[in-house]
């Protein structure tokens, strides 16, 4: 398999050229070289028919500019991602946190943790505040502080998740859990078992990590209440608690109450909390939806060209403007935590700018005006920017479909190998010149079939690299 990377490189060049329609000339110029490439491709396809998995993993490399990661590496990344989702009491920005409270389930948090954390610390995205279920404007400062004191760092986890029911997790402290997998299962089932156990373990670990942080938070809060203790730098002062929550707004998506300033959609200036914002993403790769003529038979999914798979950028949930982006203007009355003063040191008269924060009873019109005024100075963050891997995902999905259709053809060929009634048809294939009339012995049949397979493989391989129009034509030839 040493030649495979080279082969892929050549294929890439070939693909790019023919894609631009400029490839014909250079191909004609070196027919000899071209033939060699074809043969190599053919060999690799025969290999993939005989022992699929290795070639196919290499195929997906082509879609992924980064080297394909091993299971271990991928699992390490997933664990790192999960660690980044833990809410920590000592990582705050302006009264909010760097990780989500848990309005949505953990599995749905697939944004890039490092990017989002940086955006929050840079004050380009609202922090993840702990939401309130309700808010009453008539609450006194004391009442608000009391409610804030009772808030947890994270919503409670559900302990019984159906998916993980009966999945063993073993000792979470030990990195290796191979002993939990039944060795008598097939390789494929063992892999499936492995990923199931990994998921269940990761969930348990995440719960433990977060619970650890919750306990720490509680301990520190209790500690800070004793009169002799040194004030904890990371805990918010009462002034800060009130300052953060007294002016808030309901997020129109989760219906929870969040401190202002929230993020606002760039297109229509509607509020959205950060927790809902990180949920909004591109559509999954799919085929374009067409209006179908009911009189015509519908084209089946498997006949479609994988290159047609698309993924549209997220649209604004409020006004459907494409390429959803938000803007955020950080609060002027508080700058605490990372990149600001210690939360405990905040005093409400500090940094107070008259007329800026006290307009809680201001009309919507003035609010909107001050908001649009702030457009110039605020950062604009698109939904794509917190998931930079979307393009790779799309390419991978295209690759997967291509592989599947290739496999289907391979199965088709191998079926013809085992079904003797196809022998008569083999004779008519132009590639098989050996005279196979009556009484052909076993070996000639195998030779002939092998030749035919190579023939098919060349066709398929060319087809893979051709443009879609060419492709349809070729396929109908191959299958006829």
């Amino acid at each position: 398999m040493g030649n495979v990377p080279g082969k892929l490189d050549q294929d890439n060049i070939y693909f790019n050229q023919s894609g631009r329609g400029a490839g014909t000339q250079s191909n004609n110029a070196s027919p000899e070289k071209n033939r060699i490439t074809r043969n190599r491709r053919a060999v690799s396809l025969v290999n993939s028919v005989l022992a699929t998995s290795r070639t196919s993993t290499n195929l997906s490399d082509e879609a992924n500019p980064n080297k394909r990661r091993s299971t271990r590496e991928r699992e390490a990344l997933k664990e790192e991602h999960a660690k980044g989702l833990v809410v920590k009491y000592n990582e705050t920005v302006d009264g909010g946190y760097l990780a989500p409270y848990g309005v949505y389930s953990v599995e749905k948090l697939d944004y890039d943790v490092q990017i989002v954390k940086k955006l929050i610390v840079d004050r380009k995205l609202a922090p993840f505040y702990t939401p309130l279920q309700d808010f009453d404007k008539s609450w006194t400062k004391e009442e608000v502080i009391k409610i804030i004191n009772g808030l947890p760092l994270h919503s409670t986890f559900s302990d019984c998740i159906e998916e993980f029911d009966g999945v063993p997790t073993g000792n979470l402290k030990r990195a290796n859990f191979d002993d939990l997998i039944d060795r008598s299962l097939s390789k494929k089932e063992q892999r499936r078992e492995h990923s199931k156990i990994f998921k269940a373990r990761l969930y348990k670990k995440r719960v433990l990590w977060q619970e650890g942080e919750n306990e720490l938070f509680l301990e520190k809060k209790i500690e800070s209440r004793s009169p002799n203790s040194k004030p904890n730098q990371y805990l918010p002062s009462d002034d800060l608690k009130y300052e953060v929550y007294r002016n808030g707004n309901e997020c129109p998506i989760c219906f929870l109450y969040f401190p202002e300033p929230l993020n606002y959609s760039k297109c229509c200036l509607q509020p959205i909390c950060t927790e809902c914002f990180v949920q909004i993403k591109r559509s999954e790769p799919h085929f374009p939806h067409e209006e179908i003529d009911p009189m015509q038979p519908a084209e089946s999914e498997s006949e479609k060209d994988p290159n047609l798979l698309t993924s549209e950028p997220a649209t604004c949930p409020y006004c459907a403007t494409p390429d959803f982006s938000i803007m955020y203007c950080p609060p002027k009355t508080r700058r605490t935590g990372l990149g600001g003063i210690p939360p405990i040191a905040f005093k409400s008269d500090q940094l107070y700018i008259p007329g800026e924060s006290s307009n809680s009873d201001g009309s919507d019109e003035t609010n909107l005006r001050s908001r649009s005024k702030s457009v110039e100075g605020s950062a604009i963050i698109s939904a794509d920017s917190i998931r930079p891997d979307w393009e790779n995902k799309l390419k991978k999905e295209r690759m997967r479909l291509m592989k599947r259709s290739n496999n289907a053809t391979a199965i088709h060929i191998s079926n013809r190998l085992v079904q003797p009634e196809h022998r008569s048809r083999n004779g008519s294939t132009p590639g098989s010149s050996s005279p196979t009339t009556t009484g052909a012995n076993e070996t000639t049949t195998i030779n002939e079939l092998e030749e035919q397979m190579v023939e098919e493989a060349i066709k398929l391989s060319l087809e893979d690299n051709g443009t879609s129009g060419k492709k349809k034509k070729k396929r109908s030839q191959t299958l006829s």
Partner: protein
Amino acid sequence: MASLPKRIIKETERLISDPVPGITAEPHDDNLRYFNVTVEGPTQSPYENGIFKLELYLPDDYPMEAPKVRFLTKIYHPNIDRLGRICLDVLKTNWSPALQIRTVLLSIQALLASPNPNDPLANDVAEDWIKNEEAAKAKAREWTQLYAKKVDDN
């Protein structure tokens, strides 16, 4: 099962306190994500004077995922199939988390007023609709009479 999100609780409350004319939606006692729905056929449509029963389910990922809605009453419509499944953009690719139960049901009512046979779910109905719209509408009216007749509840 996890506790019910605030969003669902508030939506349900608001549906009851501020109902939509011509539409009702009530959650089941034992599953607050499951709603019994009725939609009145729009006036000047073949479904006029009919009351259609539907079921609506809010999946775990709601509101990031669209509610699942299905007609329980038999209906003759090119975008609704024999099983009551509905072909409507906001229930699929054009779903937005800013939409609500209320807006979805209004969209369904609007779909009854303006069928789209060029993007059909029930191919046979769509074919009829394109070939002979008047006859198809007459059949829709007939089905409304047969299956969706308003029952006087006095």
